């Protein structure tokens, strides 16, 4: 982030990105409906940037497809994310970025649940509580500095 502070996780493990989703014939058929599935949600969040490194959440393995669960009929989506280290102070920020991205990209009918993978963070309960609280989230986005950081994470990078 700013010049003098030390990075929390200076040498993270980097994971390989999965390729683009393949098009199938049904995708182009006008009459068939494509339900929203896990891969679609994963594609949304995988390219969110990490606040500290010029890497995406997928490359840092913070988000994985198997930890995304969506149910189109019941309009629910649940995303578990894994901070890179147990005392990561960026956890709330990352969770917030994911939540905002989903809020901006999914229809209103969806109930969005973003939480930390159980057992991977020291203060996961506190973070999860914050992320689940709608008013807290809305208030956070009123804060222009916080919004700036979130928007930076969400800006699409050219890959």
């Amino acid at each position, binding site marked *: 982030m700013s010049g003098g502070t030390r990075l929390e996780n200076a040498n993270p*493990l980097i994971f390989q990105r999965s390729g683009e989703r393949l098009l199938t014939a049904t995708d182009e058929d*006008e009459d068939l409906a*494509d339900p929203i599935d896990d891969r679609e949600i994963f594609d949304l969040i995988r390219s969110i940037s990490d606040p500290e490194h010029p890497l995406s959440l997928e490359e840092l393995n913070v988000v994985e497809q198997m930890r995304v669960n969506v149910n189109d009929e019941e309009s629910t989506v649940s995303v578990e994310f894994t901070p890179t280290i147990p005392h990561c102070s960026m956890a709330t920020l990352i969770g917030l970025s994911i939540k905002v991205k989903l809020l901006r990209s999914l*229809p209103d009918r969806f109930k969005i649940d973003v939480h930390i993978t159980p057992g991977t963070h020291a203060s996961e309960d506190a973070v999860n509580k914050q992320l689940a609280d709608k008013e807290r989230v809305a208030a956070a986005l009123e804060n222009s500095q916080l*919004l700036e950081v*979130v928007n930076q994470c*969400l*800006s*699409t990078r050219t890959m």
Partner: protein
Amino acid sequence: MLCTFCELKTKVLSRQPQLLCACAAEFEAWLLFFRMAADNSVLLGLVEEFVSGQVDSKAAETVTGSALSLTSSQPQTRGRGVQLLSQVLQECYSSLSEKELEVLLAFYENRLKDHYVIIPHVLQGLKALTECSVLPPGSAVSILRSIFQDLHVQVNTFLKGLGADFIFGFVQSVDGERDPRNLLLAFQVARNIIHRGYGLGKFVEELFEVMSCYFPIDFSPVSTAVFQTASERVESAGLSAVSALVSCLSRSVLSSDSEDVLQVFLSLVLKDCQHHLCEPDLKLVWPSAKLLQAAAGASYRASLIVSAAVIPALLEQYNNRTQVRSLLMYFSLCLLHKHTEDSVLVAFQQSLCSVVFSALTESSAGLQVTATGVLTALGQQPGLLAQTDVEKAVDHLTRLILEEDDTKVSLAVVECSGSLAHLHPKAFISRLIPRLKEEILSGQSDAAVRQRCVTALASVSSLPSVVQESAPILLQVLASAHTGTHSFYSKISFLIIFSTLLFSYRSASRMASQAVSLFLDGDVSFLPENAFPSQIQLLQRKKQHLWDSSCHSFTSRQVEIPEIDRLLVQLEDLSCTCPHLFSYTSAAKCFAGLVNKRPAGEALDAVLERVMKRISVELENVSSAQRTQAFTLLLWVSKALLLRYHPLSTALTDKLFALLSDPALGSQVADGFCVLMSDSLDVLNRNCHADVRIMYRQRFFAENSTKLIQGFNSAEQEEKSCYLKALSHIVSNLPRQIQLTELPALLPLLLEALSCADQAVQLSTLSCLQPVLLEPPAAIRNQLEALFSRLLALTTSPVMKVRIASLQCVHALSRLPEHMVLPFRARVLKALAVPLDDKKRLVRIKAMVARGEWFLLGSPGGK
């Protein structure tokens, strides 16, 4: 280090009194500075800033107030500074710690880029540093790399002078290296050493050993992707190093009594690799094979030596194992490509042939495919395939065509037949064609087999002698085929003619005349026995697409088409009267192709006049059943004339514009503009040697845009959509630059087009609009309101493609200057919430992306 330094300082200074006063204090300060830098990464950064020439005032104050010789603008002064530093280092290098060493190495490697006066001192310093026992891993190689990169030729001679020592040192430092990144560097350096002609002397063997011990490349699995791609790169780098080594050795000059270095080296390689090829467990087969291939591929001599050794061994082993068979095929293929004379392979020609033939009878598809490749290569070398072998090959191929249904294999077989037929046509004529003919005409084989036979016939028809045999068969196929399958057969016939004419270009005129006579007069011999008028018509149609523009238009302009007038008359008749869509279109295309190439003059004018009269009469007769045919002919002739800038083209295109308001033909005419402006694949393009002038589209647009706009403004409501369709076709085929400059005038029309109900119009307008929006002209600012309303409305269109295209346009609009589009933000965000829930995923994805961008617009941290 400081106390040893004080001792050494006195030692040095006592030897160099003239340097004493000026540099001593400053030098002490520098060494102190370097020491501090080793402990503090911030200072390390400052060091790097220094060496790149920037004088940082903060650090200068830290060290000393005076100008420093190491950063002096005078190269001589800098040289003296470096010289002093190097001399000190030569004395005290053993007491340096690893961190200090790293800092100094970075400094020295950077100094290699400096002025040439300084370089010798830099090299001395580097030499001293490299003798340190605590040299960090990989630094030797990176030093060498900087040396190769940054030094110029005269210093290379200095290194060559180091000669054997240098090579030895390099080999030593690479020995045992495990990090793949360093290995990559090492291989590159090895290549450079070889290519720049360093005398390898007696270290050839050591060099080879140190390189080859890395084969086969075997990495214990590491989770990061870096290592996995690195292993492939290392392997290919290693293989290319071996290749380079071999090619260099092949070019070495031998004295009469010295050993052949190449032989020595290759015997080393073969010794290592050959036994792997015949091992029972075949674990290291493919890596050894790749190594041998890299060596063999490097030069002709090497390939001779390697093949002489390897092929007999493999031939012996052939019958034992399948892996060996694939290996043999692989090698033969590689080696055959290299050989222009086949002195080596002639010796095993017989066994190789029998091996190939037996491979062709195997059931493994991969093996069969490679075997056909080998067969093709064998056939292309003179003398490798005897007449009997050719015949056997043809029989095998015939069998495979008839029996093998694996697509990859049949494709390979067809290709092989094609290339062999070109070289040994007689065998094919006498053996393949009669057998296939029997099969095709028997009427009892199933469709897949017939298709393969016809495809094979097409591919072997590359010489006139063969075409003479195969063409009649295909014509018969056409004649007896049912209407439903004619498109397939016509494609095949297309193929034959195309390939014939391409391969026998010199006899193009003969082919053309044969084709013409077959077309005009050939119906006599092909009349089926019970000749009903309808069947004759059927035949005519089928012949039409056989002798399509593919036949005539492919020939160059210089080729005289015999009886061209008679041909033109027939084509005209056919295109105006035939009720069958494909036929009259093809006839029109053919006619147009000929007209386009006809040289200007009375003959051409007469033809055009006649045709125009006929077309006008037909079109004016509103109740005629053949208006569509007449219009089609008009369209294609207009295109033919437009492409060559013929003066009559304007009259014809005006006629087309007039037809836009015709109630029956209007929309067909609008679609026709697409034909007029876009490149057609089969006729009237440059590949067919048509007369195409440059920038004809721009010219057409420039001359007619006002007419089009006027016509649109004065048209009735129902007709407007036709004008819009025509316009969007014309504009979307223009080059980008023209689109951009014309946009201000056309924008109102395009916006109109967006609200037109016709979905094709919407789609073409949107695709036309989107690239323009990426670099929008100033004129767009006045139209934003209209643009946004229309685009947002289209995001809910019933057609998926329209939704996607309009979302892309909305996305593109987010990149306009903020002050122009910010007022629309709230509206856009609200409107885009709807397609987020679209039933098609492709639409949703575009909506999410667009909406995300609009959220970021004007938001902190967004843009």
